[in-house]
């Protein structure tokens, strides 16, 4: 609604300054303004616009984790995230939107400072209540909407010019379609807008009361309310008091059950679903079966927003609203209890996932938990009561596959370690948490600490005498031993685990242990034995429906068959692994498979193809970011050498470029395998751009039918340069004619991407 002037100013600032901060009180619409500006900026920003919402983040320690995740990174190679972020952003030109920085202002400022310094083409748009106070920061104070002045003669046309009035009337019409701004009510409407200081949120909430109070009644309320206000504290800003006044009055207009629900919803840091609301907020005095009706009431009153998520419905409170509700929750003395319920609910969810990890529902669970990641984080962050630390530990442990498969290794480890610090005593849970922390540590290459943790875990697990837990810890111990080059110990531990699992009849887990032994055998050079073991593991993984582990198993088999010279078998395995991993969105697994395919092609003498697949693998590794595991590196190097020798340096480089810049789907189409047609490119991945910005410009002009000479003239470059650009475009896209370039542009490659991770669509759009 309106904001034309601010949008213009903002666009100018974004064009000239690398750091722009939108500043203003809560409820003034900073986030919405930032998003609108960001959407418009999409055209000019080659690597896209990325949104990171920080409102629900509790601890500054997780800031880099959240930014990395939002950028689609799944770092596994380092425990320090800053270098990873810098690497990912250094060569890219993108706009990072940091929304709601104020409670993490120091952390945001320090991070933004170093990122801007090291990543020359990065820009940042932040929203906050105060500026970041960094050099080169452009601050735009977002004013409230234009509201009538006091004493202004209220005539309907004049009033309509004011944005605040327009917003109020539009909102009112959503509820009362016949509502009109008339000479009779003009004065009252002007009054309302003025007293609410043009704050969009306040105006929306006030409009909701119209059906009950009417405009005059609204005014009368404000009179009462502001009399109270003038007796209140002087230190808080006037706008904050106004907003508070409107919240208070909205709260008072609710029935008791609605109030109870509204304030209890504050424990959800972001969005939540109905089930969660019922479980967490239901309970004396709210019967769980009333929650749905009450929630919908709150939605109608604009006190809760709706977040459509595919065909599901989720809900959330706006950040400013949530802060208010949290206060109310505290005053009612309910915060501790409801937070505990929140923890228990998500702990239950995690436990259910944990039980299903090695089975056919793993993919489904990974998606499910992804949607709830804010809640998972908040639940783990808020474990305070001593007797709940164990619940927290178990929950963090249950989420092991989520942390691993979704690239949140550092985050998972952070929670596990923090909770371990708080729980010196809880033996079984402690053993499990230590083992999982070690597991995540090993995956990040942090061998020493992980080995110590695994040792301690093993000691505790043996002492606890829990036969169900012990083998899991043994398997992780074996991983640690293997990382420390102690193969004999690794084998011994795996055998012990295997015996236990067999005795317990846990087929899926037996598969994991057998595969572990197979992996050791491969490392020791015993191909035949490795193959036999992996075949046994494969059968067990398939029986269990465990695609995750099946992928590893098939990959190893692929490598073994390759060693043994059976390329057909090798390819079959790798291709199946690739297809499984795409379905699970396993970035590291996909990259490994791309690499392996390259090695196979090279062995068959298809060096050009191999080079292309190497390039694609490169791009995939870089996007994570990670590198191929040390044990496979020699294969990659050998492959590169062979290709370079066969093709010559220039052809090799070009083929790699093609693979690096092309689309994975096109590459996979080469294999003509129906299994690979299940395509779901990960949504958040920062893909290397196919063409440079200049090349994109040239491509669009080619598509319009211009000749090289005309393009040169248009862009102010030499005809030779234009020709070179066109050559590059043809080569990068593997096309052979200008007409094809036209088709490519027409097909939408030059089309607008959208801002990643759009936030909720407000129940009624504010515009």
């Amino acid at each position, binding site marked *: 609604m309106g904001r034309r002037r601010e949008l213009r100013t903002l666009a100018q600032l974004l064009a000239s300054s690398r750091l722009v901060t939108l500043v203003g009180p809560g409820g003034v619409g900073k986030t919405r303004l930032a998003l609108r500006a960001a959407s418009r900026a999409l055209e000019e920003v080659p690597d896209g616009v990325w949104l990171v919402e920080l409102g629900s983040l509790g*601890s*500054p*320690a*997780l*800031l*880099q984790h959240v930014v990395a995740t939002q950028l689609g990174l799944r770092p596994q*190679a*380092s*425990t*320090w*995230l*800053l*270098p990873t972020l*810098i690497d990912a952003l250094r060569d890219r030109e993108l706009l990072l939107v940091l929304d709601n920085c104020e409670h993490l202002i*120091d*952390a945001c*400022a*320090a*991070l933004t*400072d*170093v990122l801007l*310094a*090291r990543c020359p083409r990065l820009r940042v748009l932040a929203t906050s209540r105060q500026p970041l106070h960094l050099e080169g920061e452009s601050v735009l104070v977002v004013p409230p909407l234009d509201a009538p002045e006091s004493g202004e003669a209220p005539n309907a046309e004049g009033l309509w010019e004011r944005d605040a009035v327009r917003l109020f009337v539009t909102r009112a019409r959503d509820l009362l379609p016949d509502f009109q701004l008339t000479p009779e009510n003009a004065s009252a409407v002007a009054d309302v807008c003025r007293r609410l200081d043009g704050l969009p949120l306040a105006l929306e909430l006030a409009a909701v009361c119209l059906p009950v109070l009417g405009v005059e009644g609204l005014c009368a309320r404000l009179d009462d309310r502001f009399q109270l206000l003038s007796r209140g504290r002087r230190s808080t800003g006037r706008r904050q008091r106004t907003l508070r006044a409107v919240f208070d009055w909205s709260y008072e207009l609710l029935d008791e059950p609605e109030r109870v629900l509204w304030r209890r919803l504050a424990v959800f840091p972001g969005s939540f679903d109905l089930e969660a609301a019922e479980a967490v907020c239901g309970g004396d005095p709210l019967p769980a079966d009333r929650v749905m009706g009450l929630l919908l009431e709150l939605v109608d009153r604009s006190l809760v927003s709706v977040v459509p998520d595919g065909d599901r419905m989720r809900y959330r409170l706006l950040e400013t609203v949530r802060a208010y509700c949290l206060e109310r929750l505290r005053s009612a003395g309910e915060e501790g209890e409801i937070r505990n319920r929140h923890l228990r609910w998500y702990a239950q969810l995690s436990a259910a996932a944990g039980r299903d990890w090695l089975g056919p529902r793993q993919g489904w669970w990974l998606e499910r938990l992804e949607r709830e990641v804010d809640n998972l984080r908040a639940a783990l962050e808020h474990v305070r009561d001593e007797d709940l630390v164990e619940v927290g530990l178990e929950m963090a442990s249950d989420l092991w596959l989520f942390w691993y498969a979704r690239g949140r290794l*550092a985050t998972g480890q*952070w929670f596990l*370690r923090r909770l371990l610090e708080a729980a010196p005593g809880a033996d079984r849970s402690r053993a499990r948490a230590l083992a999982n922390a070690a597991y995540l540590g090993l995956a990040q*290459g*942090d*061998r*020493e*600490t992980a080995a110590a943790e695994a040792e301690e875990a093993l000691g505790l697990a043996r002492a606890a005498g829990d036969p169900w837990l012990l083998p899991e810890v043994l398997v992780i111990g074996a991983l640690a031993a293997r990382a420390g080059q102690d193969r004999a110990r690794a084998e011994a531990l795996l055998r012990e685990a295997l015996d236990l699992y067999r005795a317990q009849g846990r087929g899926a887990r037996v598969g994991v242990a057998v595969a572990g032994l197979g992996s050791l055998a491969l490392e020791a050079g015993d191909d035949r034995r490795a193959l036999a073991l992996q075949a046994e593991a494969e059968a067990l993984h398939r029986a269990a429906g465990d695609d995750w582990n099946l992928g590893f198993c098939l990959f190893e088999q692929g490598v073994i068959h390759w060693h043994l010279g059976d390329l057909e078998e090798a390819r079959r395995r790798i291709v199946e692994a690739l297809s499984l991993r795409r379905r699970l969105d396993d970035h590291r697994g996909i990259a490994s498979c791309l690499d392996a395919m390259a090695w196979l092609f090279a062995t068959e003498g298809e060096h050009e193809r191999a080079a292309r697949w190497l390039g694609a693998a490169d791009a995939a590794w870089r996007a994570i970011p990670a590198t191929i595991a040390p044990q496979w590196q020699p294969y990659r190097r050998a492959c590169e050498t062979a290709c370079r020798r066969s093709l010559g340096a220039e052809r090799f480089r070009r083929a790699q470029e093609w693979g690096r810049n092309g689309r994975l789907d096109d590459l996979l189409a080469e294999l003509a395998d129906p299994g690979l047609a299940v395509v779901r490119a990960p949504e958040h991945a920062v893909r290397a751009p196919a063409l440079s910005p200049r090349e994109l410009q040239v491509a669009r002009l080619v598509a319009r039918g211009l000749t090289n000479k005309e393009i040169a003239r248009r862009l102010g470059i030499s005809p030779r340069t234009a020709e070179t650009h066109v050559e590059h475009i043809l080569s990068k896209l593997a096309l052979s004619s200008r007409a094809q370039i036209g088709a490519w542009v027409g097909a939408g490659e030059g089309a607008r991407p959208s801002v990643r991770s759009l936030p909720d669509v407000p129940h009624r759009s504010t515009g």
Partner: protein
Amino acid sequence: MERPRGRETGWGQPGLFLVERSLPEVGTEDLRACRTVLVETCRRLARRGHLVRYLRSILAPAEGRCFCLFEAPDPETVRLANETAQLPFARIYAVVDLPVTEVEGTT
């Protein structure tokens, strides 16, 4: 009990704290970036009244460990500084720094 010797800061009785963290394989540039964040963070926190100062780091690259020395009134402030700088750490020790003085060198 000997009071830790720190520099004259006028902060009353600052303590010294050693933060231990694992040191991954990072290049000099990246290390510098992390240090910059730490320095900047401490500066900002100090302005807010959390009087913490990052003094130095000692690295043991072969062991993959890193030790950072801070001056602060208490370990909670040190924890705050490291969390705000978003650098993971394993432990915080209260320490005493005993540089050799001229006087000690003589018999």
